[in-house]
């Protein structure tokens, strides 16, 4: 306890500043990613031939190591928060896209047939049936993206975007274990808390009729 108290009293202003930068990086890239990937997933679930191509392309994006990605983007877009947000945005796409697509594709076709047969328009089917049933998987995708983003956002420090990465890399450069811990522990905590929040949301959006007793 004393050690934590010591770290806090020594570095609190840096921790708070880094935390806001981290939240800013994760928050903006996550929201933009969701705005693009969820509607795209919905569209692809109705156009399955195109889906294979798009999802493959986004998967390839995901395989680029984050360090390399930041390095590549540096000469093109320079340094600061904007290029970091673009990289993080691209990384956030796949889990949400894939889960939205899979969630909608796994809705029982009988239910879609019945919804159609009862006279729902395709929009009503999407809102009242398909998205309701796919919601738990979509939220699971957002959760996964968030956890990834929290850890990748630490790398953004390398191109001057701030965040907890600043503390960690400063610690490494100066052989200062206190600084490394001051950056790493809050990062892990942040990922953990985000994960908990989305697990709760997931439970909330799971239709009561589908919840386990």
């Amino acid at each position: 306890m004393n050690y934590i108290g010591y770290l806090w009293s020594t570095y609190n202003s840096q921790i708070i500043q880094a935390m806001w930068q981290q939240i800013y990086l994760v928050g903006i890239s996550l929201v933009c990613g969701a705005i693009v990937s969820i509607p795209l997933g919905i569209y692809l679930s109705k156009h399955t031939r195109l889906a294979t191509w798009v999802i493959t392309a986004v998967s390839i994006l995901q395989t680029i190591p984050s360090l390399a990605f930041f390095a590549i983007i540096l000469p093109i877009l320079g340094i600061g928060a904007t290029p970091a947000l673009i990289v993080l945005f691209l990384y956030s796409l796949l889990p949400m896209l894939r889960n939205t697509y899979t969630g909608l594709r796994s809705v029982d076709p009988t239910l879609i047939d019945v919804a159609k047969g009862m006279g729902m328009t395709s929009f009503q089917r999407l809102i009242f049936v398909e998205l309701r049933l796919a919601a738990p998987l979509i939220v699971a995708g957002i959760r996964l993206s968030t956890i990834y983003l929290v850890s990748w956002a630490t790398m953004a420090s390398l191109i001057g975007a701030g965040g907890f990465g600043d503390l960690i890399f400063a610690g490494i450069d100066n052989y200062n274990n206190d600084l490394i811990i001051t950056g790493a522990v809050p990062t892990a905590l942040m990922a953990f808390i985000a994960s908990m929040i989305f697990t709760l949301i997931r439970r909330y959006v799971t239709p009561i009729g589908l919840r386990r007793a």
Partner: protein
Amino acid sequence: MTVTFSEVTKVYQGKKPAVENLNLEVHTGELLVLIGPSGCGKTTTLRMINRLEEPTHGKIQIDGRDIEKFKEEELRRGIGYTVQQTGLFPHMTVKDNIEVVPRLLKWPKDKRDERVRELLAMVNMDFEEFAHRYPRQLSGGQQQRIGVLRSLAADPPIILMDEPFGALDPISREVLQIELKKLQARLQKTIIFVTHDIDEAIRLGDRIAIFQTGQLVQLGSPQEIVKNPVNEFVASFIKKNYQFETSNLSLKALDLASVDFHPYESHDDRIILSIDGSDDFYLVDSDHRFIGTISKENVKANQITADKVLQPIRVYDSVQNILSIFKDVNTLPVVDDGNKLVGVITSLSLMNAVARLVGGNES
């Protein structure tokens, strides 16, 4: 409302026609059964009525109006639709499921509430107990009932049923068939009902349309079809599924038996059935295999063991044989080759059989 098919053909690309040159008129208030082996075009025919499939050629009219002239969604909201495996939305309560079409039609809340109460009452399901349950909290039979009620919700004049009872156990299926018959007697809807079970077709249909590889091969009342199958295919289809000899000269056990069982109660995997004209109860297992008979007193006293050794007879036993046994007993269970209980001969059912013989073959 009438539904008329005129020279309707449906071809899926690169395949033989699923339905070929179909001419058929479904009369107002009748229950028409479409039957045939799988891939015969019966389901495609059904699905063309609410435009889940579009015909390749020909036209379909409802009360003389081409269904192409309707807006797709509006057409469908005016036609009830029930499928096998219920198709109930798992995330909606019983009430929400039933209300889907009334909501699409923007009925006010009071009217919807009242309608749900009314519909549940029709099948003796208590509103307070069931309205707020989710489908998985219901038994298979209850789910299927809700599926049927849902198709009735907005009081459509036409209802399409695609093997609605196909996934149920024999007893629940029978109960639901009886309920549907009662509902239909009361509501007089135009119902088009797809099945592959000839028993079900004969029990429910006002008329039966038999399909084979996309062609309508015979259309007529159950009696006509059983009596005069137009070709070998129809004859074998009836025979295979329904051990029923209709020639007066060769009456068999089943012709003399009553087949209208009423489930009384079930104990574990045993089911007790009653039948009109007999004071005894009949005990079968979950596959409907005959175990024995139980007297009324024992059923009342909860003694669920077969207490009478009554040798059942086979469906194809001859009349002479039966009458010689029947002298000594007052009821005679009839089983098929798999020892499944298919009917019971009682004095009442014998009299009915005689009445049918005297009065021609109309029942």
